[in-house]
């Protein structure tokens, strides 16, 4: 079955206001292009979930004030939009991001539990920390402790599953049925996608099903699990993608500098999100020189090995 959609349709069809959305993104498998499109279509009051690696997507969405709550484990010190939305006392009605802090393993296991329909899951970390003690919007639903029902009787932290309404990942290749080939470290990407009710994958290139069969050691998820595939060249830019391209450090630096103020972010978004109609336009705007600098020669030759 053909699962290929234009990016705009893959957002329009699958993301609703108030949805819980998860971003994958290990070793760069971050669909920044999908985040741009959510901003363009102004899907708001989102609840964002990620095991660490989706932080740059969260920073973009928070810059556009679209996320109210985040169950996450990691933001980066360069995520200035998140900092602005979290730091200090907020006035009534002023935009604010509420964070429920977990650890990377905790969010990964919550996705694992969501994917395998286990109602709760134990973890060997978290106990005694402020992650356990301090609760934000999840309150007692954040976590609790439980004694092993078996003979060792040890008391461990237990977590609720996480089942996002939609999860999105950027990968190297997929065929038109949604069989995804992904290279690089997996982070929590696989379990996040499996846990979600709807699964979207943006890819650098659509390949044939024959190509997938020949390289099935790299198949990340089978096509029947995937709802939509979008071909989006340089879809992780300004982040990198293993075997394809490096991160674009000057672009990131410029984004961070502009993100120091809301006005700066808004102007940046006007230029790089709202002012651009097609992916070709975006890649053209990045410029030949940058594309040449970040692109992996292996990728240009269009070989996997």
């Amino acid at each position: 079955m053909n699962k290929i959609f234009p990016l705009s349709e893959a957002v329009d069809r699958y993301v609703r206001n108030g949805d819980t959305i998860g971003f994958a993104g290990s070793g760069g498998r971050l669909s920044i292009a999908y985040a741009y499109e959510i901003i363009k279509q102004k899907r708001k009051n989102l609840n964002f979930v990620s095991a660490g690696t989706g932080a740059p997507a969260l920073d973009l969405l928070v810059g556009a004030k679209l996320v109210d709550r985040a169950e996450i484990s990691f933001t980066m010190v360069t995520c200035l939009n998140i900092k602005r939305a979290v730091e200090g006392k907020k006035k009534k009605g002023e935009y604010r991001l509420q964070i429920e802090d977990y650890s990377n393993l905790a969010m990964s296991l919550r996705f694992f539990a969501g994917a395998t329909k286990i109602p709760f899951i134990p973890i060997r970390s978290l106990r005694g920390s402020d992650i356990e003690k301090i609760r934000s919007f999840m309150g007692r639903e954040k976590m609790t402790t439980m004694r092993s029902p078996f003979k060792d009787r040890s008391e461990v932290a237990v977590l609720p599953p996480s089942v996002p309404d939609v999860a999105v990942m950027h990968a190297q290749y997929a065929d038109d049925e949604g069989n995804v080939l992904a290279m690089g470290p997996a982070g929590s990407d696989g379990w996040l996608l499996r846990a979600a009710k709807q699964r979207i994958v943006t890819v650098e290139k659509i390949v044939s099903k024959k190509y997938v069969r020949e390289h099935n050691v790299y198949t990340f998820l089978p096509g029947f699990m995937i709802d939509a595939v979008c071909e989006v060249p340089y879809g992780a830019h300004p982040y990198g993608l293993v075997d394809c391209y490096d991160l674009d450090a000057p672009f990131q630096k410029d984004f961070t500098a502009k993100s120091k103020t809301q006005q700066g972010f808004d102007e940046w978004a006007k230029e790089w999100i709202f002012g651009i109609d097609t992916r070709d336009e975006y890649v053209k705007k990045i410029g030949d020189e940058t594309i040449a600098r970040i692109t992996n020669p292996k990728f240009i030759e269009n070989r996997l090995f």
Partner: protein
Amino acid sequence: MQESQTPNSLKTGSSKEYTLREATIIAASHLINDGDAVFIGQGLPVIVALFAKRRHAPNCVIMHEYGVVDTDPPFAVELAHPLFAENATYLCDMIDALGCLLHNIDIAFLGAAQIDKYANVNTTTIGDYFAPKVRISGSGGANDIGSIAPRLALIMDRQTSDKFPERVDYLTTPGNFFGLKKTRKDLYLPGGGVDTVFTDVGIYKASHRTGELSLDSLHHGVTLDEAKSKTGWKLKTAKKVGSLNPPSKEDVQLLRSLDPRMVYLR
């Protein structure tokens, strides 16, 4: 509070130029032995481990929670950079890395924004959690590493009394909790806790009995008074506080060659 007498800029030590950050990285690298399986967090641990691998521990296995194991990047890059992963011998997911591999390592290294008297780490918020003065980064895998790693070392770039308080504002990652060695056991946390902390002041060791940090040795040219003024509690010291040799010219050259993009040495 007395200001630092030793600027963190270029220091001159017997005709060798280096920064205290470089001296800290080099000192920390000596905790890594050849063949060790080393789990690293964000920040300085990346270059500490890579320096050890290039200098004295070529067979150390460097790994990170994204699912990158036994990596050997050509130079120090951000953990999210594809080059960090591209020649690893094993790629996996976070549940494997943090949930399983972490139990089997020799030593873990974490960076920290705040470290307290009992080597607990804060990387989440400064000030009130619900209206923080500063939002830092959160746990990432740090809480898991602190809870599970058999042995843990911390590294901090620039020690001040605010960053070295009696008690962290938010306990993101357990070091040795609050002086009761049995706390970890009570909480059924498998890890061994923190044994060493490296800063631009010197090296701190945790007491086997209480977990409290005490000053073990000072960087060349740093005084005991400075160490005390940059510590937010009444600092204990070893019976005889050592003085570290200035790093050799070769070590400094090697270190700088490993970070041509100045990701970690800037």
